[in-house]
Each structure stands twice: as structure tokens, then as C-alpha cells.
């Protein structure tokens, strides 16, 4: 909605053509995925040891040489994974395509699966489409994983030196500013529309608050399940890396990233086809949506927690073994203090992701069990644009609040 109100034909910066189509879908996906890509790549950049920056200074490296010899090797480890994640998010994107699709010409596989199930009642066609989607995803995932490597060297927690930060060029600052404006404008436009619209009457509707409660329940539950499962997978995988079996570790992490190759709507379709002959799937909305969203969050959890857990394991595992520091004591005295920051981030990311889900809840949701995202979709379908704008702002504020609170409460302050 924000993207349309900024770049649409009646928007602040009209792009000269209708946003309802591939152009708008592309623009919206860049808007959504830019901050995510930055957030996921940042830890790799931060993991560059301070000694490397000092060495670069000593060797009088210029900006390009610093990038080539220091930054690129660090980013290269994470880049294929992040690219794959963004690609898959775009490939399996549902809400944006549904909103900006502009008709059958711009429909994607994901939306076609949804329409086959919910409107055309053709489960066979949905399954065929799901298989096509699955094959496509597997091909891309296979290619990307060939390029991806687990870190071979121990990563230190030294933050990048302030000297390096001070050397940021004007060009870099300009790019950062441009990206910030690009991301901030659609959000500002929603805020503007809400403040100039019938805010209080919309806030008085009970359906809005019921949807808010449902969103919170699904978001937090899915994130908890996702982080718990991710933690266990990573613990096992870190042990394998430590034991010199990075291949097996990669397989374990791949298992956690199943959503890379099996999009949530495909999982949802499978569940729909599997459960519908036996139970009324619409009675099982919350457990199903929580389960699928937990799976969707796993790749984010693995990407966020993985490097820190591997580092922690490589540094302290022998010492822990020697001191018999295991189980609860190991968690309490070692893992919680040292990993709570990435843990908080993983929890916040998984929650935000589940809060923003439309695909799965659209498949299973009912008006009584709608989340904020489904409510927005229903309101847009009923041309209640002012209501949808308020709901969108509420969703945005909820995401920000939950993200901030979880990162703050769980993440705490960083240890040296």
C-alpha cells in the first residue's frame, strides 16, 4: 500500500505507468528485501577481525583493496545464502503479487496455487503447480548451495574498527541515505494517509483488535517454535563442524532450511490436501499456520544464530567438556550470556516474518480467525481503503514494537 501511494499514478513520485503489474511487483520486492539483505549481511561484515583492518591500514590498502582482500572474502560466505533467501522470498511471494498482480498476465505460481485451492476448488491443479514450484526452487537451491561455504576460519567478535568506519566514503554515505529514503517513503505515506483519514472510527472496530490478538498469538508462537528447533539443529551442526564433518553439518542446516525448496504455500497445500478428507482444516487454523510459519522462520534463525553458535562451540566446547559444563549449566553460564544477542535477533526476525505472513493464513484463515495481514487483504477486497491503511499502520507498529522489544529484552547488551 505504501509503495503504491508513493510510486503509483496518484502518488508522491508517480513513475509514469501503472504499478499494477511486474514493474510494481519488482519495486515492492526491492523495498521489502533491501533491509533484510542488509540485516543478514551485516553480521558477516561485523565479524571481520579488527586485526584485518589494522593490517589494511599498515599495508596502506585503498578502498578497493580493502573490499577485495578483507570485505569480499567475509561477505562471500554469506552472500549465496542471502541471495538464495531473497530469491526464494520473491519467488514464493504471495501478498505483494496478490495486491499488485494486475491480472492473470502477472500471476505467479504461488498465487495460482492459492486460486486453484480457494476459488477454483481444483486440488489436482494446485498439486501440479506446487510440484512445478518445488522443482524450480530445488534447482535454484542446488545451484546456490554449490557456491556456499561454511566458514572455515574462526570468526572473532571484534567489531570492525572505528578507523574503518571513519573511512566511509561520501559515495557510500550517499547510497545509504538513498536506500534509507527509499525504504522510509512508503512507510511515511501510510502514516500520512492514516493521520488524514478517519482514524478513531476505524480503531473502534473490534475486528481490528481480534486480528491483532491473532497475529500476536501466531507470530510469537511460530517464532518460539522456530527458534527452539533452530537452536537444536545448530547445536548438532556446530558439533559436527567441530568434529571435522562440515559436509554433514551443512546437510543438517539444509534440513532446517527446507522452506528454501518447499515454499510455505506448497506445505500449506500439502496439509490442505492431506487433512481435508479427515478433519475440517478451518478448525485447525492456528496450529497449522503456526507450524508452517515456524518452518518459514527456520532459515532466518539458522542464518542469524549459526555463525555465533559455531564460533562459541569452536572456542569453548573443549573447555566445557573438561569442566563438565553441560546441559542447563552450559546454557545458563555460557550460551545465554554470549548468544542472547543473536538469539534476540532471530526471535525478532521470526516473529516479524510470521506477523507478515499472508500466504498460509489466506489459505486456511476464516473471517473470525483472521490476522492483521488477512484483514488488510479482506478490507482491500471490500474497497475499505481507509480501514486497510489503519490496519497496515497497526501491523507496521506491531512489527516494530515486537522487533524492538524482543531484540531488547532477549538480546540485552552485548558481551565483549
Amino acid at each position, binding site marked *: 500500500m505504501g509503495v503504491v501511494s508513493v510510486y503509483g499514478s496518484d502518488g508522491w513520485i508517480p513513475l509514469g505507468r501503472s504499478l499494477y503489474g511486474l514493474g510494481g511487483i519488482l519495486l515492492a520486492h526491492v523495498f521489502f528485501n533491501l533491509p533484510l539483505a542488509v540485516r543478514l549481511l551485516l553480521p558477516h561484515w561485523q565479524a571481520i577481525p579488527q586485526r584485518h583492518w589494522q593490517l589494511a591500514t599498515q599495508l596502506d590498502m585503498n578502498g578497493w583493496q580493502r573490499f577485495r582482500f578483507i570485505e569480499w572474502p567475509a561477505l562471500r560466505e554469506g552472500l549465496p545464502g542471502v541471495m538464495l533467501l531473497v530469491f526464494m522470498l520473491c519467488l514464493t511471494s504471495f501478498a505483494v503479487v496478490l495486491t499488485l498482480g494486475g491480472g492473470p498476465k502477472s500471476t505467479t505460481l504461488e498465487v495460482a496455487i492459492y486460486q486453484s485451492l480457494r476459488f477454483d476448488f481444483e486440488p489436482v491443479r494446485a498439486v501440479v503447480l506446487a510440484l512445478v514450484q518445488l522443482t524450480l526452487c530445488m534447482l535454484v537451491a542446488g545451484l546456490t548451495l554449490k557456491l556456499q561455504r561454511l566458514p572455515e576460519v574462526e570468526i572473532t567478535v571484534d567489531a570492525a574498527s572505528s578507523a574503518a568506519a571513519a573511512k566511509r566514503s561520501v559515495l557510500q554515505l550517499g547510497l545509504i541515505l538513498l536506500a534509507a529514503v527509499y525504504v522510509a517513503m512508503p512507510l511515511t505515506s501510510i502514516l500520512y494517509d492514516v493521520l488524514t483519514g478517519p482514524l478513531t472510527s476505524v480503531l473502534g472496530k473490534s475486528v481490528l483488535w481480534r486480528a491483532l490478538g491473532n497475529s500476536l498469538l501466531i507470530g510469537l508462537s511460530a517464532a518460539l517454535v522456530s527458534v527452539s528447533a533452530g537452536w537444536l539443529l545448530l547445536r548438532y551442526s556446530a558439533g559436527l563442524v567441530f568434529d*571435522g564433518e562440515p559436509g554433514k553439518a551443512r546437510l543438517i542446516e539444509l534440513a532446517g532450511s527446507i522452506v528454501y525448496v518447499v515454499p510455505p504455500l506448497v506445505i500449506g497445500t500439502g496439509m490442505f490436501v492431506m487433512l481435508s478428507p479427515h478433519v475440517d482444516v478451518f478448525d485447525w487454523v492456528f496450529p497449522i499456520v503456526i507450524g508452517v510459519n515456524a518452518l518459514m522462520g527456520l532459515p532466518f534463525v539458522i542464518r542469524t544464530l549459526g555463525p555465533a553458535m559455531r564460533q562459541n562451540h569452536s*572456542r*569453548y566446547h*573443549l*573447555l566445557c*567438556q*573438561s*569442566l*563438565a*559444563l*553441560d546441559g542447563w*549449566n*552450559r546454557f545458563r*553460564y*555460557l550460551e545465554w*550470556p*554470549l548468544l542472547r544477542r543473536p538469539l534476540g535477533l532471530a526471535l525478532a526476525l521470526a516473529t516479524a516474518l510470521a506477523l507478515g505472513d499472508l500466504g498460509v493464513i489466506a489459505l486456511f484463515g476464516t473471517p473470525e480467525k483472521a490476522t492483521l495481514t488477512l484483514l488488510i487483504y479482506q478490507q482491500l477486497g471490500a474497497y475499505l481503503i481507509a480501514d486497510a491503511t489503519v490496519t497496515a499502520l497497526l501491523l507496521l507498529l506491531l512489527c516494530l514494537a515486537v522487533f524492538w522489544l524482543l531484540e531488547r529484552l532477549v538480546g540485552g547488551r552485548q*558481551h*565483549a
Partner: protein
Amino acid sequence: MLEIRHLEFSYRDGDQTPMCFDLDVADGEVVSLIGPSGSGKSTLLNLIAGFLVPGGGQIRLDGVSIESLPASRRPVSIVFQQHNLFPHLDLYTNVALGVDPSLRLTSSQSENVRAALERLGLAELQQRKPGALSGGQRQRVALARALVRRRKILLLDEAFAALGPALRAELIELVKSLVRENGMTALLVSHQPRDALLASERTAFICDGRVLALQPTTELLERSPLAAVGEYLGST
């Protein structure tokens, strides 16, 4: 007495020749382990500590086999070159973890922790975190923890490699006195022949996964007929 008999080990990748160690260390003795990089010095310590599982052979302490015990139950304390301390915990807690990982210490155990810190000259610093200490002080804390654990075998895996010569000499003297006072047995891996001279009456030379020589340190370093020792010391 620590006895190591035909202790075998092979890394999974199979690039290296299979290792087989034989070594005796008397009570109260410090033995240095020297040898080229990749020769198996740290592997031997990891086998004794229980971090690696041997393919065969025995590790006996005072006649009792310990090779089947898990790492946490072995009568072993180990000090690494780095990452011995948890950065977010203060010195007292880092040492206390050596007594009881749940940190439920009795008053006498707490007193022991304080006494160990006092013995290592760290009493004034016990509330500090490792980040506020020098490299030498950090290794002292690790030694204090080894002390409170009251395990018979002390393994030092290049524990002082990052320190200057004077500090290394000081800490080696400290290790010797701790070993003597507490009836321990210590193995010290070092790349510095001078460390071996300072630390131990006897030194083992390890090459290609075997103890090629176990001799009085001066004799090994100054008059060894082994070509490998000469190559290692750069005297041939």
C-alpha cells in the same frame, strides 16, 4: 605415575601417518613436549584429556586405566593458548566453574577459590572480567582454576606461547611450584626449547606421531644424535 602405552590415533582424513605414543611421567614431574608443527603434540594432549578417542592403547594413572572415562571425569586439567576464560564472567566465577559448573559452592569451596586466586596473585582482581586483564594474568586465572579442580594431571597446550620471554619464565616457575606443592604431573607443549629447559628435567621429542626421544632436556637439546631433533632445532 602417568603411563601411556601404545596409544594409537588416526585422523579421519587419513592424510597423516597413524600415530602411536608411549610415554611415562613420574609424580610431581613436568615433562615438556617439543617437535615440529603437526607432529602430534597437541593430539597427544587431546587424547589424554579425552577430547579425542584413541584407536587403541592405554592411559594409566597410578596403575588405573583412564582412557574409557569421559573428558569431564578424567583427572585432568588443561590450559589452552587462548579462550580459557569465559569473557562475560568475572575471575572468581571463571575459577569457581572449575569446582562446580552449577556454581553451588560451599563456603569452604568458595574459600578454596579465593585461596587459589590469592596464590596466583589475583586476589585484588577477582571481580574483574577477563577483558580487563593482561595475557599473563589471564593464564594465571586458568592456572588458578586448574588448581581448584585438584586433578592430578595438568596439561599445558602452548599455554604461554603468546607471552613474552620473561613472563613465560615466570609462569613456568609458577607451574613448577604448583605441580610440586600439589603432587601433580604436568605435560607442557611448547615450540620454545628455552621453555623446555626452564620447565622440565626431561623432554620428549615428538615427530610423525611418535615419541622419538624422552631424555634429560639438556641432553636432548644439546647432544641428541637424532637427525630429526637437529633439523627441528635448526642445528644441522
